[in-house]
Structures are given as C-alpha cells and as structure tokens.
C-alpha cells in the first residue's frame, strides 16, 4: 500500500553526476548549459567545489553522461562510490602504516635493546672520563638519528599541536624522550656541572620508549582492523556487477550503472545486486546475512528482494526499485557505520578528562620534579629527571579515549550480524538497562497475518453468502482482521459485491449498504451501541476468545446473522524468546486491542507477566508513560508504523521488521527479522558491550590513576620503588593495546542459543 503511494508521489528523478576535468569555475556554466539543453531535464546545477552536478528530470543517465562528454568533460554517476574498493584501499593504507611502524620499531629497538642489556649486565651508564664523554657523545648522536627516523612524527606532531595551543599523546612522548635525551647530552658535554651521582645517561630509555610505543601502535593498528570486521562483512555483500535485460538481451553491467526500473536477472547461486520486485520466476532466497534468519524465504512474483541476499534455487527476473545508496543493504551499512562512531553517555566522563589530560600530566610532571629536587635523596637531579620523564611517558590518554569507541564499534557490529540494527551508542546503553518490555500483540507476538477460523451462521443464510457480504464490506477497511476476512473470501473464489455509504467506526468496526441491506460488522461494543441483540452469541464469542480467537459479529438490518472468528497464529518462538527476556529480569507486558478473553488466552500461551486488553492504538503511548512514571525503563516493541508515538516515547523503541521490508530508520533499535529472539539478542549484546566499556574505562582509569603517582615516585619513600622510564614506555604502549584487545573479545560473544 505504502509503496504504491510512494511511487505515485515520487518527485521528478534527481541524479548526481561526478564531473571530471572541470578545472575552472568557468566550466560550471558550460556544463550546466549542456545538461539543461538535454530534452527532459528540468534543472541542472553544478557544485564546483564537489565537482558534482545535480540533474532533475526523467532522463536516462547515459544521455546525461553523453551530453557532458560532448563538450569535452567526463562524467559518471556519483554517490555510488564502491564501498568495497574504498575498504580495500583503506586496508592497504593500514597495512602500509603498519609496516612503517614496524620499521620504526626495529630501528629504535635495534639501538635501545643493546644499550639496555649493557646497562643491565653492569656496564657503566655514567660519564666520568673524557673517553666516556666521547663514546656516550657518539651514542647520543646515534640516538638522535633514531629519534629522527623512528620518532619524528611524535616531535613534529607535538610541535604543531603546541603552536596551536593544543596537546596530545605526541606531546607527552616528545617531552618525555626529549627531556631524557637533553639531560643525557648535558651529562656528556658538561659533566662537571652535575654532581658525580647524577651523571647518568638515559639514551637507552629514549630509544627503547620510541621503539616500544611504535610497536604498541603497530599492534593497535592490527587489533583495530579486527574491530571493524562486521562492517567489512556487510560491505562484502555488495556485488560489483549485475545482469540486466536491455533491448531483450542480457547485459552484464557495473552495479553503479543499474538504474531504477531496470529488469535484473539473477541465477541460482548469485547474489541479488540491487533491491527490487520480482516480476517472474520463483526461488528460495537466503536472507540470513541481513536478517539473521537462517531459513531461506520463498520469493515469487510481486515479492521484494534485497541486495546482498543470496538466490539459492531458481532464476528470477526482477525490477530494480532501489539502487545505489537507497538499497536496504546500503542503508544498513551507513546506519551501522554511523552507530559505530557514536558514543554512549557512559563515555562522556572520559571525554571531559581527555580534554584536560595532557596539560595536567605536564603539570604533575613538573611538580614531581620539584618535589624530588626539594626533598629527594641524592642524586636529586637524576631522580627528578627520571621521575618527570616517567610521569610523561606512562600517562596514556589513548587508553581512556579508546575505551568506549572500541567497544561500541565491536558491539554494534556484532548486533548487526544477528540482524539487530542499533541506531546509536545511547540506544545501546539504555537497552542494557531495560526493566520492562512492552510488546504489541499483533505482528510482534503473533505473525500479524490473521486468518478466518470459524464462521457460525445464526440464520438460514448460506455460509458463502455471509462471507461474501462480510468480505465485501471489509474490503473497504485496512484493518488486519478485515484483510483476513477478504482473503478468506478470495481463497474460496467468492466474488465481492458493491458496498455504498461505507463508514469505519474507530476501534469498533464498519457499516455500509449493500444491495439495499444495511451491513454492520465489528465487535461486541459496536453491536451493543447499535442496538443489535446478541443473545447467546455472546457466549459463543467468549468460547472463541478463550481459544485466542477474535470473535466478530455480523448483522444485517440490525439482526445478528453470524459470528466470524479470526485468529492470528502465535510465532513459534515467541514463548521461548519471552522466557529469555524474563530470565534477564525483564518484566514482559503485552498490549492488545483484542478483547480480554483473547488476550488472556494469548498471554497464557506465551507466558507474559502482565497484559492489557482492548487498548486503542492511541492509548499505547499513555501506557508506556504509566510504566515510566512508576520508575521503569521501558522498551517498546512495535511495527514502526502504527506504534510510532509509543516507540518514540519509550526509553528504547524497537521497530520489528519481517524480512527486508523494514523501516530501518524508525526505531532506536531495528530488528531485521520478525522473531522476538532479536529482542533478547539486542539486550544481551547491549549488556555485554556495556560491561566491556566499563571494564575498559575502569582499566584505563586505574592504569592512569595508579601509574602516574607510581611513576612520580610515590612508592619510593615507603618501599624504595621507582619506575624506570623504559618500563613506563612499555606499559604505556600496551595499555591502549589492552583496551583494543578487550574490545575485540566481544567478537566472540554469542547470544544464548535459541
């Protein structure tokens, strides 16, 4: 229904071209003129900055490209950048960066490790003689070369940040290693300025720190690559070419060239290239990659197919209905990417700290140096330099900064694999705290496709005549129960008759005139209000309701003629999924517009904690509010269309979709398949992610809060422990790696089997 409306109301087609070869602003007019002259173009506008042209009008893409090429420029369809290519390029760049970091590591460690070993085996690291001055001076120059080859990015970064009144991790590393090197050079050149005990050189520390931090960064690049595996998998579902029928011939074209209304062919074993509507053939389609639903779905004429899904058994011809960035897959990818980059509020404190972190560490470093100089034992200067350097090196803003985004990245990706699309980090955080889950019965607990189960005729009319009249009047209604009656008539090949003066009475039923008779069809309330005597039919109605069927009454000329029962089958796994939610301590509440008896029957079958019957659609939001006022954190599950106000009001709105026909943007969390297990999966992933974030944040806080005072020498007066700058460098390098690795653990998370 909605789809046909969309098609009718679709505005004039707008296409965006990427223009190549336009090097001056003067080209703009020329290109715009050429495009505007193409018959059918209503408006063409070029954005010189983007090198793109937006063209409105019903014109084939090829014609536009030709028009641009005729005046000496090149054009192609924009906004269909190949995600897979971009990804490969990104991976290649990451690989190059990884190699560079490793090279930096080996150079620095190649100098640092021998020096450190020399120190550990008892070699003199102090400068007392001229020979030592010369030797250590040479070592100092070699270290300087290491600082340049392996660490120049830290120093340049620190300097550029500094002149921009900003400080970051580079600042800390540059200051720490720079201080150690400068002090050591001071010892080499003017040892006499310093007391004998303070003539210690720290070249090994400088080289080791640079090596270890580069190594940590290299490991981090590898580990972070893994955090985006889910999105890589989704991007991998996009195929590069499609077979379309042009002039009655099959042509294999690039996916970017597939246009709306093109007829696309897919053979068994091929992936669906774009979204479309089947026009001939039938086949089983594996949609698990999008919905998490393991059982293939049969598709035949009129059904929708989604790009990225796998055609298993037969050949299909379908008409492209969504291409490029509009396909369900492209939207899912873009939503997952956006959500992966968003942050839940739990990470806010870390953000605030990050902004003040580096200058604060610099101040702590100065204070610790002053304390050592004023109150420390001999050699005070050497202790002060070591403590100040160690404080700078051990502090790790990265671990704090990475704690939340890394977990969100993996968690959101993991959820997407299970067919659960989480809109943002905040939804993820709130979902983990839900205490009450409100479910709409129809389409959520039940399949949402009711069918007629009983027709009890109460007068001498023929059953098929009763069904004919009932279906004729119901064919004007869009209510799911009405559709069930109409389908039942169609199944029996009963022709419908004309109904006039149709009137829908909200929440009660319908009335109209047919062949001179007044028809009334609806619930008990409608009959009572219209003065139709129900007598013993009420009892029959109750009996049907107790079997989870919805009884409806049909009256002709205000005389009751039939009770028609419709039942909506409960989804096979609803009961198990509800039990899973309850085992997580969540209260499950069912809302339904049905009468109390039907509600009781369904509630009993699926085992919800509470239910509310005869709830009108407009009252659902109010019901959600009642729970919220009682202090509950409410999740509301609905189909995303009728339940929009309740979904919006709930703390977390879950839009439930069946197959790929899903309103991706309508809820905080969208379940790509109809099963309620998706809800339990969403909550399980959210809880696991939140726990992971908390572990990361705690780890990062504890590391910095404990590490910095120890580095400053707080333990020295009590236990004689003072950290070496090299140990601090190793700890710092591996602290952010720990955070990323912990986030990666989420990749192994599995929702309980169902």
């Amino acid at each position, binding site marked *: 229904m909605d789809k046909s409306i969309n098609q009718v109301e679709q505005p004039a087609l707008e296409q965006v071209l990427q223009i190549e070869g336009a090097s001056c602003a003067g080209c703009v007019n020329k290109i715009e003129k050429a495009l505007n002259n193409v018959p059918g173009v209503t408006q063409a506008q070029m954005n010189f*900055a*983007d090198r793109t042209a937006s063209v409105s009008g019903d014109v084939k893409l090829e014609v536009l490209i030709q028009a641009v090429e005729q005046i000496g420029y090149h054009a192609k369809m924009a906004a269909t950048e190949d995600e897979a290519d*971009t990804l490969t*390029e*990104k991976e290649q*760049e*990451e690989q*190059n*960066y990884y190699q*560079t970091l490793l090279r930096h590591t080996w150079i620095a460690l190649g100098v640092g490790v021998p020096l450190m070993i020399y120190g550990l085996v008892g070699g003199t690291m102090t400068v007392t003689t001229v020979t030592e001055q010369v030797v250590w001076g040479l070592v100092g120059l070699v270290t300087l070369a290491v600082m340049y080859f392996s660490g120049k*990015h830290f120093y*340049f*970064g*620190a*300097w*550029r*940040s*500094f002149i*921009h*009144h*900003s*400080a*970051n*991790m*580079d*600042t800390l590393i540059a200051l720490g290693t720079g201080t150690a090197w400068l002090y050591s050079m001071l010892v080499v050149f003017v040892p006499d300025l310093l007391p004998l005990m303070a003539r210690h050189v720290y070249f090994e520390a400088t080289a080791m720190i640079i090596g270890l931090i580069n190594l940590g*960064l290299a490991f*981090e*690049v590898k580990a*972070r690559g893994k955090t985006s595996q889910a999105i890589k998998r989704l991007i991998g579902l996009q195929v590069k070419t499609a077979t379309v029928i042009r002039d009655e011939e099959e042509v294999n074209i690039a996916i970017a060239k597939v246009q709306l209304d093109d007829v696309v062919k897919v053979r068994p074993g091929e992936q669906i290239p774009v979204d479309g509507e089947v026009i001939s053939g039938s086949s089983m389609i594996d949609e698990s990659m999008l919905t998490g639903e393991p059982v293939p779905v049969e598709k035949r004429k009129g059904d929708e197919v989604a790009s990225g899904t796998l055609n298993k058994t037969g050949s299909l011809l379908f008409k492209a209905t969504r291409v490029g960035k509009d396909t369900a897959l492209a939207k899912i990818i873009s939503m997952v*990417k*956006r959500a992966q*980059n*968003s*942050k839940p509020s739990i990470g806010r404190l870390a*953000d605030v700290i*990050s*902004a*003040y972190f*580096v*200058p604060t560490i*610099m*101040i702590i470093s*100065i*204070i610790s*140096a*002053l304390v050592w*100089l*004023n109150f420390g034992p001999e050699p005070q200067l050497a202790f002060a330099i070591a403590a100040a350097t160690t404080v700078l090196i051990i502090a790790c*803003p*990265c671990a*704090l*900064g*990475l704690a939340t*985004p890394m977990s969100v990245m993996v968690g959101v990706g993991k959820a997407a694999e299970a067919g659960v699309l989480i809109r943002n980090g905040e939804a993820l955080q709130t979902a983990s705290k839900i205490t009450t889950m409100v479910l709409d019965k129809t389409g959520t607990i039940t399949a949402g496709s009711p069918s007629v189960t009983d027709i009890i005729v109460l007068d001498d009319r023929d059953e098929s005549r009763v069904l004919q009249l009932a279906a004729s009047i119901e064919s004007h209604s869009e209510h799911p129960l009405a559709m069930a009656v109409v389908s039942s008539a169609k199944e029996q090949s009963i022709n419908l008759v004309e109904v006039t003066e149709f009137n829908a009475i909200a929440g009660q039923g319908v009335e109209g005139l047919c062949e001179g008779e007044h028809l009334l069809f609806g619930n008990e309330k409608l009959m009572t209000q219209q003065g139709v005597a129900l007598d013993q039919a009420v009892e029959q109605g109750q009996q049907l309701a107790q079997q989870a069927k919805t009884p409806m009454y049909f009256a002709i000329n205000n005389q009751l003629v039939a009770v028609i029962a419709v039942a909506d089958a409960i989804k096979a796994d609803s009961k198990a999924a509800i039990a899973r939610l309850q085992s997580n301590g969540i209260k499950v509440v069912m809302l339904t517009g049905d009468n109390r008896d039907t509600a009781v029957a369904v509630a009993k079958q699926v085992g919800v904690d509470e239910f509310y019957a005869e709830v009108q659609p407009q009252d659902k939001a109010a019901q959600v509010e009642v729970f919220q006022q009682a202090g509950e954190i409410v999740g509301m599950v609905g189909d995303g269309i009728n339940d929009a106000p309740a979904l919006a009001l709930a703390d977390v709105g879950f839009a439930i979709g069946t197959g790929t026909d899903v309103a991706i943007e309508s809820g905080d969390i969208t379940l790509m398949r109809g099963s309620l297990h998706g809800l339990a999966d969403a909550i399980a992933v959210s809880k696991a992610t939140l726990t992971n974030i908390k572990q990361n944040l705690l780890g990062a806080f504890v590391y910095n809060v404990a590490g910095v005072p120890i580095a400053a020498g707080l333990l020295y007066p009590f236990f004689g422990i003072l950290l070496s700058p090299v140990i601090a460098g190793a700890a710092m390098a591996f602290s952010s790696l720990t955070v990323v690795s912990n986030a990666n653990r989420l990749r192994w998370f599995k929702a309980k089997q169902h």
Partner: protein
Amino acid sequence: MIVINLLGLVLIGFIVWWFWLYQPPKQRTNKGNIEIEVKDGVYTPAQVKVLAGQPFTLRFIRRDPSLCAEVVQIPTLSVSDNLPTNQPHDISLPELAVGKYEFHCQMKMYRGVIHVVEDE
C-alpha cells in the same frame, strides 16, 4: 633552589595559560567550502568562523595515517564520519544557529571549533 622552584611555578602558569586560558584571535568569516587539513595532531585551521543561516561544507583532508585521525565527530550535529587518507572528505552542514560547535576525533586529541556568528 628558590630560582628552580620559581621557574617550575612559572612553567606551570605558562601551561595553564597556553593550553587552557589562551583565547585565539578573531578569525575571518569563512564561506562555502572550508578546507581543513588533518595532520600532526591538529586540524588546520582548528577555528572556523561561519555566518548563521548559511549552509557550508567542511572539507577534511587527512594527511595523518595514524588511527587517531580516522574519525571526525561533531557531536551536537550528530556527525561522525570516517576520513580517508590523502583524499578530501566533505561534510555538508545545514544552516546553523549562532553558537559554538566543537569538532574532534574520537579521542578528543584533534580538536576544533566552528564559530557560527551573526552577519557582521
């Protein structure tokens, strides 16, 4: 020792002023496309001034391969984009109300501000 202690205190004072209290000079108003280079730990320019009620585009060019520079976020506008390396990446922004809009990387090490001002 007094001199060293005083020097230390001056240095602390300098850090506080340089990193926290310093107010950047007034910027020229930018129009249309604003190119921002992402390199060596800073956005250049990091302070962007635009007129209220006029849409504009931030074009980020990331020259830094490190992962810190990978994402740019404008939290108040719900923008969070991945930046490719050595390629322009445009973020088109709608007409904004007067105010300050921070943009930064995921770890807030790269930081910048969009100042949206009334017509001068």
